């Protein structure tokens, strides 16, 4: 039957040897450990900056989903937009009887416009 103090003695000896091997690590290894530590510390800054943007990712996602939902809910128009009132009115004027007469007397109207101007000028 082994006594508990023998277990303790084994643990003590093992720890002593382990500590000794830790103390005897060479300079190149210590330098690599040092570099690793600094890379790890730089990771804090990196994760912070990523975290800053990452905070907006869910909000942006929700906003994009909301926009998509509204577009789907409103429904995409199957046909193009209705023609505006302007062109229809012009067309009606053009096909009206009066306008045809006006087209026939186009020479008269083009003559009367400069003569009006001359008359105005004489009056003035």
């Amino acid at each position, binding site marked *: 039957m082994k006594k508990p103090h023998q277990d303790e003695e*084994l643990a003590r000896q*093992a720890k002593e040897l*382990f500590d000794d*091997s*830790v103390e005897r*690590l060479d300079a190149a290894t210590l330098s690599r*450990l040092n570099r*690793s530590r600094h*890379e*790890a510390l730089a990771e804090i800054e990196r994760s912070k900056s990523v975290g800053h943007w990452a905070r907006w990712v869910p909000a942006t996602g929700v906003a994009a989903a909301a926009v998509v939902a509204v577009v789907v809910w409103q429904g995409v128009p199957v046909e193009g937009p209705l023609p505006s009132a302007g062109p229809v009115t012009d067309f009606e004027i053009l096909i009206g009887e009066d306008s045809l007469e006006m087209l026939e007397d186009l020479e008269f109207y083009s003559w009367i416009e400069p003569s009006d101007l001359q008359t105005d000028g004489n009056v003035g």
Partner: protein
Amino acid sequence: MSACAGVFAVSCSREQSKGATTLQRERQLNQFLAGVERRALRFAEIAVRDRDEALDLVQDAMIKLARNYAEQPEDEWTPLFFRILQNGIRDWYRRQMVRNRVMVWFGRGTNADNDYDPVAQAPDPAGRGPDDQAQTDEAMQELESAVGRLPARQREAFMLRTFEGLDVAGTAVAMGCSQGSVKTHYSRAVHSLRDALGEHWQ
């Protein structure tokens, strides 16, 4: 206008205090890692029996601790760090197993690691003579070899309790198991080591 300036000033002072806290935390983490890195390296090296692999494992553990647990209370860092390291070592073993199977499939054997001697070339800082140093090296090799032959959970319990000096609760956190399991694994590990190391250690 003055209200805006007030809000801006409060915001600035908050940012400054946040920055100071982060800086202080970084300093604490640096101190912690500087204190634990050598032991962690030897810990990993005994487990995987390769210094370069051990350095990679320690670096990964440091980065993961800094990235994910820097905000945790400082007294939780030790068990967390060794838990991360321990998980890395387990993953390493899994990868090795897969690699070895592939090697066997292609008819190539695995490298024997019996001639591994991680500290033999290092100078002795205590200034001991070559004979004393050789004796210590031999004892350490015996210990490493015996610890390396332990089942994984026993090895973890023994190394965390003995080498790192973690208590049962801390070891349980690091191993991700109950305190009762830690006691059982540790007791079995010590028993196995006593049998393996024999009269040299009694």
